[in-house]
């Protein structure tokens, strides 16, 4: 179980998170929605300890990862797999080494064994015969799939998705949504995604939480969110430029 308690984070004078509270049960799929620059990426980076909060706690299975030292943080991170927005593949190594990176660092498996596991994980995300290709030769969708294969290679308990469908064509985006659902069913993982793609959010979420102005302003099942009376959430999910949400704060994202 993951619990964010009163999470605050500022960059210089800019307050990005102003007291986020969010609870994610084991096995649940939670999607955090919010506009560009609303601090979604900052929130996600706190969950895996890439950023430390100014105030508040990030409890992962009862352990506050905002407080623990680097050695223990490294152990906690083995529970996580993360798919980055741009996939963040290591461009100096072929696909199989990317997928098997964690295995090579943290197990004593031989190269052949790692390659076999990589083949198997790539197959799970629908890719065959690309083990020896360099990441620069892959398309955007394939890079995301390889990123996902790398995230699941160590069989994590929690998967984090940073804008999994951004930058993909609608068909590829839906295929990635299917994969996210697939991963959850096959691997029984807890999923936390951040996105502003509502089609994706409705499809993959058990529960949707909206981040606005540094706090979670509402949570609910996709059905509840669709039928919400909250004017902020309503404006966001319908994608209307007019409403209570102003476009201020767009500078947050670069600082994340």
């Amino acid at each position: 179980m993951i619990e964010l308690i009163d999470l605050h984070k500022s960059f210089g004078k800019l307050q990005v998170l102003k007291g986020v509270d969010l609870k994610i049960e084991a096995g649940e799929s939670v999607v955090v929605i919010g506009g560009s620059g609303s601090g979604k990426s900052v929130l996600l980076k706190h969950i895996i300890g890439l950023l430390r909060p100014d105030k508040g706690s990030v409890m992962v299975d009862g352990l506050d990862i905002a407080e623990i030292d680097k050695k223990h943080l490294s152990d906690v991170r083995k529970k996580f797999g993360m798919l980055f927005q741009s996939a963040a593949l290591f461009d100096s190594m072929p696909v199989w080494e990317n997928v098997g990176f964690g295995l090579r660092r943290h197990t004593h498996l031989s190269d052949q064994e790692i390659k076999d596991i990589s083949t198997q994980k790539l197959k799970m995300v629908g890719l065959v015969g690309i083990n020896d290709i360099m990441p620069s030769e892959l398309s955007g969708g394939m890079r995301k799939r390889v990123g996902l294969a790398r995230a699941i290679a160590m069989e994590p308990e929690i998967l984090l998705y940073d804008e999994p469908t951004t930058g993909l064509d609608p068909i590829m985006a839906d295929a990635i949504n299917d994969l996210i659902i697939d991963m959850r069913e096959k691997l029984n993982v807890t999923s936390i995604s951040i996105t502003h793609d509502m089609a994706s959010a409705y499809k993959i979420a058990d529960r949707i939480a909206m981040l606005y102005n540094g706090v979670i302003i509402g949570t609910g099942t996709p059905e509840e969110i669709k039928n919400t009376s909250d004017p902020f959430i309503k404006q966001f999910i319908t994608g209307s430029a007019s409403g209570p949400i102003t476009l201020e704060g767009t500078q947050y994202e670069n600082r994340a």
Partner: protein
Amino acid sequence: MIVRAIEYIGSYIKGPVEMIGQIIMLFFSTLRVMLIPPFDVRIILKQMLEVGVRSLPVVLITAVFTGMVLALQSYTGFKRFGAEGLVGTIVALSMTRELGPVLTALIVTGRAGAAMAAELGTMRVTEQIDALETLATNPVKYLVVPRFLSGTVMLPFLTVISDIVGIIGGYIVTVTILGASSTTYMRTTWDYLEMQDIYAGLIKACFFGASMALICCHKGFYTKGGAEGVGKATTGAVVLSFMTILISDYFLSVWLFK
């Protein structure tokens, strides 16, 4: 008024002071994680190949021509007061004490150091360094330690080669082109060259290699803002390394040759 003046000065020195602090902290965390297994032998060897072996051709060419021009200039200069016999000594001392380590360090910075800053900078802006952390891998251990070690270890090796090749370059010009005596060149080289000259040059090389690697890794590590940021980080890394090498060279010389 006074407060404003202090604020004004402070705004200029805050950045450099912060950077020096970060570099020192990076140095200590590099030393700390270096001793913790696993030891990334393969990555360290790959970096040594990059920093050492691949820099060799440029180092050789620079050293031979430096030795040659040094011999040429000092021969014509010294001839005016009949001291051309000391050309061997001048070349040997200049190469081992100063030009060997300094020029090698500058070349390696331009070649391998710039590559370190650009590679780490690109990894930073494309979130690859974050990805390393999410894969429970310490980026300092994985990225900085191999580069730091290869800089510190390979620079002295390259310097020894540079010293030898520079002295050979001097010999070629003095003996075969200017027609001076081979025996005199050899004798004045060996008679006045002391082991301490060579050791001190190598200590300098170690220091230059370590500081170059740390500065370039630091600049890469703290890159912000896309392609432009990577460009700035790379330029900044090279400029700061050059300045560090040249300034510290003076102080190291004061300390090592007192």
